[in-house]
């Protein structure tokens, strides 16, 4: 007998209700709040300071800010949000909304950093009104498509970072796991800044969740990195899908587990294929630019 059974209406779905509650928790989380504030402040001050913006400078500034603040900040925040209910593990285990539904709700919340990234990108475009690239170096000789594909990858980083935080939160209960993983993640991404001179180095460059299309120790000597951004975009998208599947796999049983494993295997194979293709295609060799 339940006195208010009628109140448990069939819509909205419990997953959406949970997503709404978790979204509120993400927005109130100190790490995410600081990351948002930092992103906004740095972006606005960059726009105000730079007198002659062009698409290259806009891309670099916005890209690095977004990847750091929303990607890494979102990763840390979602990791903490995911782990926060550990203290109530016993109570949460005895409710009808199961772990997969709760995980799905957390994954849905990760569109918030993506939405912020889209809004900040639009703001940057509108406020900065970047002019044509006049410098011969840097992005000047990159196809426009590559520049925009790079920006799409930045958006995916703002989605993938938080998703990875949910996955790590589900699988790794060590309290320092989030922070240590953030260090390793940043180290991995930064290590792709070295010149791609071979298949291995290009593969390493393309495999990273976030990387820049150009690199250079100084303004006189810059390098366009090998690999195809056309294939990199679906590769990064497949990484995001893998993160969701891996998160849902935790606690899955029976046919659900089998389905997730099969889907995950297919997506993993696709990701590997896309990675190899993105490494092999694109510009051959390295183009040296001099100012």
């Amino acid at each position, binding site marked *: 007998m339940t006195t208010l059974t009628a109140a448990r209406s069939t819509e909205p779905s419990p997953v959406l209700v949970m997503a709404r509650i978790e979204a509120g928790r993400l927005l109130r989380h100190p790490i995410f709040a600081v990351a948002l504030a930092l992103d906004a402040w740095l972006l606005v001050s960059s726009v105000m300071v730079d007198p002659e913006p062009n698409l290259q400078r806009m891309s670099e500034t916005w890209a690095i800010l977004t990847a750091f603040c929303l990607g890494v900040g979102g990763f840390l925040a979602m990791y903490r949000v995911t782990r926060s209910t550990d203290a109530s593990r016993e109570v949460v285990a005895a409710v009808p909304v199961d772990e997969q539904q709760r995980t799905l709700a957390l994954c849905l919340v990760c569109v918030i950093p993506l939405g912020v990234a889209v809004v900040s990108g639009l703001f940057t475009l509108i406020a900065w009104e970047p002019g044509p690239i006049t410098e011969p170096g840097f992005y000047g000789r990159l196809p426009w498509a590559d520049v925009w594909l790079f920006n799409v990858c930045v958006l995916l980083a703002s989605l993938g970072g938080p998703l990875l935080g949910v996955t790590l939160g589900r699988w790794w209960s060590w309290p320092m796991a989030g922070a240590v993983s953030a*260090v390793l993640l940043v180290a991995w991404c930064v290590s792709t800044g070295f010149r791609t001179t071979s298949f291995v180095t290009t593969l390493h460059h393309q495999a990273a969740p976030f990387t820049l299309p150009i690199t250079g120790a100084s303004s006189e000597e810059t390098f366009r990195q090998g690999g195809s951004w056309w294939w990199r975009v679906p590769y990064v998208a497949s990484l995001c899908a893998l993160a969701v599947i891996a998160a849902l796999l935790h606690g899955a049983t029976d046919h659900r587990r089998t389905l997730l494993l099969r889907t995950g295997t297919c997506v993993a194979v696709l990701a590997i294929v896309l990675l190899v293709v993105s490494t092999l295609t694109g510009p051959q060799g390295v183009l040296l630019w001099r100012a």
Partner: protein
Amino acid sequence: MAGLAVPELRAIAWGHVIGPVVVGTTLLAFTTAGLLDGPQPTFLWLGLGALILGVVACLDEPAAMVTGACPATRRRRTVERLLAASPVVVGWCVLAGLVDGVNGLSGSALALTGTGSLLAAIAAADVLRRLGVDEPGPVVGSVALLGLLGCLLFQPIGGLVVLQAYDDLGSTALWPAVLVMSIAVLAWSTNDPASPARTLRRR
């Protein structure tokens, strides 16, 4: 002293300390060994970030309510816990000496910045502990890591180079001042919280 220190060292959550320290040491070892074009400030600072995560975990004390009522003073217990952190500080200074002059890096700047960062993180963790957060490690570690990553990406900040790896960049007063302040803060935070406040006596 060793006999007295052992219980306190046993109370440290070594898993939380060793994990990040191993990650940091591995990163530093890779970059020092000449991989990826030799020692680079970025990887040195990332390794430092991981070391900070390990060092602040030394002060996590879930049973603080109980140990606060024991005869062993808070200062002594904190010093004993920091015995676990001292090899990390020493190790960082040794590393700074090893990379001195390589790729233009300054050993003294690295040593000062790294030691200052580690001590500042320890001081912040102890202050939080005094304010009632029995396990300050994750909080201080996350904040320190974000701050470090922010400095890494966006320095100079207001013209100031915070993470100093070279002699000719950055303020020479910043990290010595941080060191002194951290020691002073630690001296205050390790006082017995239950001791009555000193009152000025009029003569």
